[in-house]
């Protein structure tokens, strides 16, 4: 990378061959919409000078399903399955964010057991989502086997969720007032067993991928998004923490019962020769977050109380006239729900602030001067889910 003279926008292709003058110009190339490295239907229009990206313009909207418009015609409970389908890899966290917004306006008291189960499933979902990010990121960079290891563990979480909710990806499990189904002692024991195994697995991933020479060379000093850039674009989640900012809503502004648990907020510290804010930093933040999630889950398992799992909610939910903006920390960043009610049984307006939408908008600034292969590494490192970008 160092030896490349990075042209940026001022490219004046003036290469001449002795026998004939060859005209060279920038080549426009469409990455996507169907490209395995874009994690969904993202199209990036790139202008390349040989192997170097000179411009990149992300085009989104291929997965736009009018979720916000749909929700204006559904009752408050009916929106939950639609919220699932935004970020299909972190559905539990999305449900929690939406349900918290409704509950805030409704003033519902959620039973303690339901709160514990909510934290448990959202942390398990965070692990599952980060495992997916880890596996596919290694796949992007040409390593196949980490993907299989990651899916092996992820499968255990999905099996548990399937028993809990009846679905593997789109759960409709966290409801207004509590959760749909109680968790059994046997399932809790299996979660404990999973935690014990998973810590060993994390060590294996560290040796297999994180310390892998090729992987480090591909990701260190690549796609640097520093703290200033993150603030300008409003980036959150692992992207912001990868830039060395210790910002996690679960700590800063605890929602649900996150204030009762002890955990650290991992940030990038430039360990192992990485530049703060590069792809490796974002990757390593996710890996560390998984072990913090395990820590939270362990505390849930010891603290969980028995009792009801559903609070008192009227059959037809009607919210008071007004609006709220509720933020929660999802695997990919901060999810913001702006819910406007006019006093009827349907939302007047539901605006979702998607973290990935923000992160994709940063690609245009990061890309110029990168090799195409490094650009693929950058896209993978921000861990986008296009369902959430386009909604």
């Amino acid at each position, binding site marked *: 990378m160092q030896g490349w003279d990075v042209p940026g926008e001022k490219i004046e292709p003036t290469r001449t061959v002795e026998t004939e003058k060859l005209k060279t110009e920038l080549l426009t190339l469409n990455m996507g919409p169907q490209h395995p490295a874009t994690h969904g239907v993202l199209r990036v229009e790139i202008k390349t000078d040989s192997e170097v990206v000179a411009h990149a313009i992300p085009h989104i909207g291929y997965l736009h399903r009018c979720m916000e418009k749909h929700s204006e015609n559904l009752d408050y409970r009916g929106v939950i399955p639609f919220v699932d389908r935004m970020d299909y890899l972190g559905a539990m966290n999305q449900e929690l964010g939406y349900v918290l917004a409704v509950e805030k306006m409704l003033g519902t008291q959620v039973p303690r057991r339901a709160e514990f189960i909510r934290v448990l499933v959202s942390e398990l979902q965070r692990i599952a989502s980060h495992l997916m990010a880890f596996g596919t990121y290694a796949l992007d960079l040409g390593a196949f086997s980490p993907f299989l290891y990651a899916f092996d563990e992820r499968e255990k979480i999905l099996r548990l969720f399937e028993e809990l909710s009846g679905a593997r990806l789109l759960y409709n499990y966290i409801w207004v007032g509590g959760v749909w189904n109680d968790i059994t002692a046997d399932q809790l024991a299996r979660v404990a067993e999973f935690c014990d195994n998973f810590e060993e697995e994390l060590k294996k991933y560290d040796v297999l991928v994180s310390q892998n020479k090729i992987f480090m060379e591909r990701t260190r000093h690549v796609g640097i998004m520093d703290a200033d850039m993150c603030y300008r674009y*409003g980036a959150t989640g692992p992207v912001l923490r990868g830039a060395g900012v210790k910002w996690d809503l679960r700590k800063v502004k605890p929602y649900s019962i996150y204030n009762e648990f002890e955990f650290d907020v991992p940030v990038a510290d430039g360990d192992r020769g990485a530049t703060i804010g590069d792809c490796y930093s974002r990757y390593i933040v996710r890996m560390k977050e998984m072990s913090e999630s395990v820590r939270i889950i362990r505390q849930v398992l010891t603290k969980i109380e028995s009792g009801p799992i559903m609070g008192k909610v009227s059959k037809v939910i009607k919210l008071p*006239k007004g*609006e709220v903006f509720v933020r929660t920390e999802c695997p990919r960043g901060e999810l913001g729900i702006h819910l406007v009610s006019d006093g009827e049984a349907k939302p007047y307006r539901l605006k979702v602030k998607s973290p990935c*939408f923000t992160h994709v908008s940063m690609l245009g600034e990061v890309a110029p001067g990168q090799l195409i292969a490094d650009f693929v590494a950058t896209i993978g490192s921000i861990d986008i889910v296009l369902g959430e970008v386009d909604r």
Partner: protein
Amino acid sequence: MLNLNDLAQFINSKVPSAAAKVNAAAEAVCDSAIEVAPASILDVAKSLKDNSKYPFNVLQVISGVDYPDHIEVNYMFANFDLNNAYEFTLKTKVKNKNDAKLESISSVYKAADWQERECYDMLGVTFNNHPDHRRILCPDDWEGFPLRKDYVVQKVYRGMEVNPDAKMNWGDREFAKRQEEITKAQTKASKK
């Protein structure tokens, strides 16, 4: 905790034309906001970013809401600082719905670039001096603004029929209609 009255006073002292006032929520559970005049939005954004008393370093989201007589554009600002974290919603009302115009603040907050594009795409608010003013989620030649309350889907797009009858799931529609009747009956019952 951020005191909105103080902040509104602060905005007025910096930008007198803003006429900032606090829109207190009627219910305690809802959020209050500060409303400013639409013409002053760029100056307000500048003063919010570059000051030492209330520094807001992040624009989180721009959320437009369509009301019968105006379009309301909400700007959610926040300060991502561990020792001094706060956030608030800035509102502005665009009265003329047929020619809704606002000044773009993407020169101050880069995040506004895509957020304003989405607001334009969904609600038809035009942002002056925007660097790349295009639709973002819908195709560039799509007609109408989907999140307006009076939006009707166009019948034909590029020679293709939108929502052709043969591809509609009528069973679902009947189911939805039945659900609506049940909900109505339940609402009546709960009123009694």
